[in-house]
């Protein structure tokens, strides 16, 4: 899939799914769109991820299942609120993760530069692809160091601010240090906002890319129309 069609999905799904008038007016479409990340996962053979997605979607819809009504009626409101948020956000988050996992940094930079998006924005956002695993690794390391320095448990509760500082300072400084070194290494290898880059991926949108982009456009149009005609309270 071309990065442009991926981005079209990535923008469309969260936009329309988070819109209350759209969800009320087109419940069937909402179901179809919720299933889309699942189809994508199955297509990529990410079985574990698909399983988790099904489980999360099932749990978040628990209040809507008539058979489970005796249970869901007794759920306290914060949990119901949480489930609703989960219901709305899960498809968008899943699509985001899938885009991150299936796109290489070069593909992303080249795709965006072809969409005439300023190179500064493209390069800055491209680092996200590299940074999630970095932050995770740093966080684990800092947790170990805190434990070694006996800064856990009761001590953390007694001095929450100080503890927060111990936790966050090295994380921020260490990741920003990695960021600095990363940009040094990238600039030394000629990464530039001014020069064009070689593109490995074909520029041409394939047939199914066009279908995805057109459908995404139609959905956004439908969403806008729904917003306009929806009765105002």
């Amino acid at each position, binding site marked *: 899939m071309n990065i442009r069609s991926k981005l079209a999905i990535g923008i469309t799904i969260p936009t329309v799914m988070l819109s209350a008038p759209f969800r009320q007016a087109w419940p069937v479409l909402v179901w179809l769109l919720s299933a889309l990340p699942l189809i994508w996962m199955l297509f990529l053979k990410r079985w574990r991820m698909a399983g988790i997605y099904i489980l999360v979607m099932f749990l978040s819809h628990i209040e809507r299942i008539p058979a489970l009504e005796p249970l869901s009626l007794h759920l306290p409101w914060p949990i119901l609120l949480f489930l609703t948020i989960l219901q709305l956000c899960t498809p968008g988050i899943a699509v985001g993760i899938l885009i991150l996992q299936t796109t290489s*940094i070069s593909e992303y930079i080249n795709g965006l530069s072809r969409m005439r998006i300023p190179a500064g924005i493209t390069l800055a956002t491209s680092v996200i692809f590299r940074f999630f695993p970095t932050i995770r690794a740093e966080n684990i390391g800092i947790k170990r160091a805190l434990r070694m320095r006996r800064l856990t448990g009761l001590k953390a509760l007694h001095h929450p601010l100080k503890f927060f500082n111990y936790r966050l300072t090295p994380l921020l400084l260490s990741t920003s240090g990695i960021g600095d*070194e990363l940009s040094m*290494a990238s600039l*030394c290898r000629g990464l530039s906002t001014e020069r064009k880059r070689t593109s*490995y991926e074909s520029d041409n949108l394939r047939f199914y890319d066009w279908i995805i982009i057109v459908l995404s456009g139609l959905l956004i149009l439908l969403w806008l129309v729904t917003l306009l005609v929806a009765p105002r309270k």
Partner: protein
Amino acid sequence: MKKSISAAIEENEPILLIDNLSFTYEEPIMDLADWYDEEVATSHTLTATRGMAPAELFDEELPKSQTSTAENEMTLKDISFSVEAGELILITGESGCGKTTLLQIINGIIPEFSNGRIEGDVLFRGESIIGIPVDRRGTLIGSVFQNPRSQFFNVLVKDELRFGCENLNLPVDVIEKRVSMLVKEFQMESYLERNLFHLSGGEKQKVACLSVAAMQPPIMLYDEPSSNLDAAGMRSLAQLMQVFKLAGVTQLVAEHRLSYVSGLVDRVIVMKDGKIEENFSGDRLRSLSVEQLRQMGLRSSRAVQPPATDHPLVIRSPIEQKNRTGTQDIDPEDLYIESLEMTYSKAAQPLLRIKDYCFKGNRIHALVAGNGVGKSTLLRSIAGLEKRAKGYVHYRGQRYKLKQMSRFCSVVFQDVNRQLLTDSVYNELLLSLEESDMSLKEKDELIILLAKRLELDHFLDAHPFSLSGGQKQRLAFATTLLMNQPILILDEPTSGLDLKHMVIMAEILAEYAKNHLVLLATHDQELLRMLGAEIHELINE
């Protein structure tokens, strides 16, 4: 007067000429002395739970309490030398001598990333390159950095190898040709589709070198490229350098581990305090004895053989071992591991399986193994910091679960950036004494004493993250010493240290091991020789 590049080549101009180069950092350094006094006087009203730190460790007299200002600015002074095409130049000297600054001015990171005043010039084939921005200099000068972790931009190896060439907007077929040539030459075929986050330090460094080499720059710079490499990794790096040398690439290597590169060196530049102290041929380097090198503050230029060990102990992992000693023979101070096992969630085979193993108390034990065998994991498991590790430890007459061991251990991690938690070197050291029952004055004295011994006393007010790699390692080491735990664990503690500081660390460790158990993992054969440690080899079968 500037000449055209072709004219310069005809005149047999050196490929690189460093002409009277000086550099001064111009970032304002905060004077924190007043703040420091206030902080020491008011901070930390602490309760005591543990014994005093061993003041007798530090054989120097107590200095007067001092409030130093941060003096970590680095200056280069009148650096001049020329480099002929195809030469391999070794730039060496104590950490903080200006090696890295010099390379950063040559490749353009300074002034892009640091403010400062550059005087003098850097000429590439007779033409000044000081004004050329860093991203354009990449075609002339390729750079390999110290930390393999932070110099790859992509996730997959194949993307990383293409990355530099893509930035130069080369045609796809040219990139493919260059990459496949390198991949073939260095047998990287099986790596192409692998995730860089899952490679060992040595493998990452190899990818970093090849990614730069694919851009075919006439000059390559390396900034302490061996810091995170084991012996095999260093050999592989030296092999890369040899191939590049044969291909006519000019190479500048800033390094304090000399052994792996000494056979290839054409000329050596020894720096001290930002100046060139000596400039001699590679042949002379190879002829100098270890003692002569030491007098110059340099490490050995020959491959140091691992010290012979009369302890036939071998930890074989994940092969199970028979009970060698039996728990009844062990001394209370011995660390006796019982059925340690650690498995990654997705792997079927355990990464580590050690059944009954004993580390004798009040000694230094060194774990040696290649990159990626599991030394760090084993150390973390023993320190009770590896959640997935299961097993027991017998220590001081009790049987503990592994995770309970964290109460006895202090650890210098391989990446010390993650263990520096506070806003100044002084506070970092003070934090380690939080549970001590010493008075504030005693703590202050002890901190200053230790800081002086480890040559950190000029940086007490500096932020830990403003220190150099070697200084950070010394600071992390100091914090663990001050915790005064019965078991001290160190994971590659000397990767960023020069000879002088390695000797200091070895002396302190030898002293500390008289009444503590010290367990370290290292690739550093010189350190092992100095320590006279018991060697335990971790083998992956």
